[in-house]
């Protein structure tokens, strides 16, 4: 009996095995034929909702993704410019930004997109969204040509205090415009309660204005289907349709699986972290560059320093720490070499920001890896490390008291950050700073960060591509507009730098932060950035550690060809559904190969 069972099982397994060996090419039974489908590795977790008002919806509805719902403009981080989307033109005035809606723009149901839709989206839907960030920078959004049959111009009016055209543009590239005729009844049904409104999943034929529509979804994948009547095909792309008929985002359960699927040609593009990508090149996996750094670096993981705790409130101690870190080790060992050599300060010394970077200042006042200078700074502040048999025992301050061991915090399991922390600790202990690693559960990390419950902590300022860079990065690290004591929450300047009213307060930081967004003269702006960056290098409010890409971008040209690269940079390196990367859908072409 048992033997018979075993035989049956074996036969079954063999049969199944055989069916698995059949080559999978073009099969008539496929609902989403491979050669018509672009598969993107981007769905992190099972789909929860497709409501664009939800703070964390699924692909392709989340922020920056524009295949169903569109924003007014795309942002191209490589060129630093805005590209038209629903908006055809942007005019900057001292007190407002005016945007013209493209005259051809239509919703999926054929109704025209008007300035009223834009005003309604901001004034009603985003207005009741608790803590909606764009409203921090706006006083009003109104229709300019309100009497027109189809109003097309909308004005975004700045706040009178600290007007900030940069951040308004930032939000125009991120906030989707929604159809008033669809959402007004939904809002009424929710009785105006935002928490009720976002329980609506918007997953049944949702009306947007983009080139694709939601086709179907399950816990295993999300499918979007090309909307052939998309207004932009004729108006913006000379009548061309996007090449893939379907976009599919499979839901895999770990980073490695997206990487594996990309090597197998099972997905065509991804924004996952792939360690040692050069080893995957022979399987056809490519990135923006074919050599290091592979990805264009764009943001700076930074060690935030708690300015409320001694001796971290001492500039000499902070600079000593910054001098003690081996930035080359971090670049080579912690981030797979996906970076370029590090310069001090908060301005990227390449790309769009290069025009604001001053090499002379960086050389003169910046902190680089230099253990001798680190020891000098410590000695000048009266600190000294006590060593026994070459091992650091403790650090003493000028009064001869022991400085309590300091901890550098980061979430456990975030291996690149953990490596950064280890390299920092090693460097600082060598020069006599008593510091240790503190790897905590990510939930504890998220709690500690805004409450200032840390000595040093790793975080990335301003992680989204933005026309407001590098201002947004400085602002994230420095601004004291909402300064709150430890124990209350701050989601920028978590280290509580520059408390207004305190003896150490430097008003110039806040003046510069307020001034930079409103200057129109490029030379003046460069001068202000130079001053701000020099101040930062002198005072060392936090320690930028390395340059990283804001999003990874890899592709495999087995099934689709024509992905933008550094050699053919017709679009920025983002997956085709994210930001301006969406435009590559019209440029991709079938490669003739078939993936599994």
């Amino acid at each position: 009996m048992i033997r018979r069972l075993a035989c049956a099982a074996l036969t079954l397994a063999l049969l199944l095995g055989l069916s698995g060996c059949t080559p999978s090419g073009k099969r008539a039974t496929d609902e989403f034929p491979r050669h018509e489908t672009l598969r993107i590795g981007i769905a992190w977790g099972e789909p929860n909702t497709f409501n664009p008002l939800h703070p964390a919806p699924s692909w392709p509805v989340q922020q920056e993704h524009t295949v169903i719902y569109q924003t007014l403009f795309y942002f191209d981080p490589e060129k630093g410019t805005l590209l038209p989307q629903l908006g055809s033109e942007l005019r900057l005035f001292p007190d407002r930004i005016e945007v013209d809606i493209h005259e051809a723009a239509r919703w999926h149901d054929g109704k025209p997109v008007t300035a009223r839709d834009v005003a309604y989206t901001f004034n009603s839907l985003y207005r009741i969204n608790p803590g909606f960030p764009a409203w921090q920078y706006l006083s009003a959004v109104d229709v300019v040509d309100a009497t027109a049959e189809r109003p097309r111009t909308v004005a975004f009016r700045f706040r009178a205090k600290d007007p900030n055209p940069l951040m308004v543009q930032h939000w125009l590239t991120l906030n989707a415009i929604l159809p008033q005729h669809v959402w007004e009844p939904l809002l009424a049904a929710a009785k105006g309660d935002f928490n009720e409104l976002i329980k609506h999943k918007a997953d049944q034929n949702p009306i947007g204005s983009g080139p694709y529509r939601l086709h179907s979804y399950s816990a295993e994948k999300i499918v979007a289907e090309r909307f052939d009547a998309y207004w932009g095909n004729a108006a913006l792309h000379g009548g061309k349709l996007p090449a893939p008929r379907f976009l599919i985002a499979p839901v895999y359960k770990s980073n490695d699986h997206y990487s594996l699927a990309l090597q197998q040609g099972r997905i065509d593009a991804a924004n996952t972290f792939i360690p040692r990508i050069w080893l995957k090149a022979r399987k056809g996996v490519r990135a923006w560059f074919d050599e290091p750094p592979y990805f264009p670096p764009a943001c700076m993981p930074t060690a935030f320093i708690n300015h409320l705790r001694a001796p971290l409130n001492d500039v000499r101690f902070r600079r000593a720490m910054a001098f003690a870190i081996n930035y080359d080790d971090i670049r080579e060992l912690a981030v797979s070499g996906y970076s370029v050599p590090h310069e001090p300060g908060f301005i990227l010394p390449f790309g769009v920001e290069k025009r604001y970077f001053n090499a002379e200042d960086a050389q003169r006042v910046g902190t680089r890896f230099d253990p001798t200078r680190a020891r000098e700074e410590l000695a000048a502040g009266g600190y000294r490390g006590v060593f026994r048999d070459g091992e650091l025992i403790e650090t003493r301050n000028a009064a001869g008291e022991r400085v309590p061991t300091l901890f550098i915090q980061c979430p456990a399991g975030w291996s690149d950050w953990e490596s950064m922390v280890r390299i920092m600790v090693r460097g600082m202990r060598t020069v006599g700073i008593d510091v240790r690693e503190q790897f905590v559960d990510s939930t504890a990390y998220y709690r500690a960060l805004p409450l200032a419950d840390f000595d040093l902590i790793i975080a990335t300022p301003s992680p989204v591509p933005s026309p407001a860079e590098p201002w947004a990065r400085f602002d994230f690290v420095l601004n004291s507009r909402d300064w709150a004591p430890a124990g209350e929450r701050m989601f920028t300047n978590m280290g509580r730098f520059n408390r207004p009213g305190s003896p150490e307060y430097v008003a110039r930081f806040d003046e510069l932060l307020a001034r930079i967004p409103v200057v129109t003269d490029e030379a003046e702006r460069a001068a202000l950035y130079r001053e701000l960056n020099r101040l930062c290098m002198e005072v060392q409010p936090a320690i930028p550690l390395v340059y990283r890409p804001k999003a990874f971008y890899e592709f495999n040209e087995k099934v689709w060809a024509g992905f933008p690269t550094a050699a053919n940079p017709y679009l920025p390196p983002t997956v085709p559904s994210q930001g301006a990367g969406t435009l590559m859908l019209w440029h991709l072409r079938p490669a003739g190969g078939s993936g599994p």
Partner: protein
Amino acid sequence: MFRQHPTLRYITARAGWYALTFLVAVTINFWLPRLGEANPVDTLMARVSGSMDAQAAREREESYLREFGLVQTDDTGKILRAADGTPLRTSILTQFLRYLRMSLQGDFGRSIVQHPRPVSDIILTALPWTLALQIPALVLGWFIGNGLGALAAYRRGVLDKVFYPVALLVSAIPSFCFGILLVYIFGVQLEWLPTLGGYDEALNPGFNAAFLSSAATYYILPFLSVFLLVVGGQAIGMRSMCIYELGTDYVRYAKLMGVRESTIVRYMFRNAMLPQLTGLALTLGGMVGGALIAEMVFSYPGLGLSVLTAIQSLDYPVITGCTLLVTTCVLVANFTVDILIGFLDPRIRAAREGEA
């Protein structure tokens, strides 16, 4: 009445104990994740708070706290505050009582991380996959493993000499390692079998040949990763049990009396099987937990990912919902085996009847 019905009394007593265990387990499952300082709203805020100012962040946070019932509200839904304006948190006890009340009505709340999905929706869409992978693998593995183990013990010889070390090796490999090995050999190196997902991405699930054959192909490796381990583990146990039984007086006596071999094996098998049966109950109970590993290694559809993310980000309702499921599985499986053994094992039956 129980006096006349010892069996009924036995079942009721067992059921009583299991009900008590269930209550204790549910309480612990509810309290444990809530004991720490961190809470899921902190994690959510970190995801959505990019460039929010203090006022905006406070509004968003309070909106979350209200939505998830973590702060006290008045009848109109307004948040109650302490004198300094901070919202009054709901005590764990109040949360627990509300949870019990809602659970009794079949409402397990909404996920926090996968908001606004109801927990019941998360579990119900995933559970069929988890069961379809685990139950056949466990049950088939149990039968085949025990069969092979008994055979190896009885026949000895070459079968035993080859089979026993192999089984020992297989069952000693941690299950995630074994899964990764399978992925590496068959998926990456040989590229014979798909190693990611539950079916081809070119298809949507449906009752048609294309989907079923695709699902069958994708089933092989995850199935083997569970099945082979179960076979190995069970076989070793069964082999030892059988070898022990072979040396007992009743087997020797039966042999001397010239009882037919197949009859002896049958008696022996029945005796050796009892501890293995308890083992099966435990394995079936731990199914959801074990599913996690196979599912994560093969990106196989099922509860695994939801459970993992829930635990990583303190998604209270999902953690509570899934642990409730695990608790129920373990207890139901054990209860069933308890009852079954009560019937199958003459010693327990005799003891019970003796009491009556």
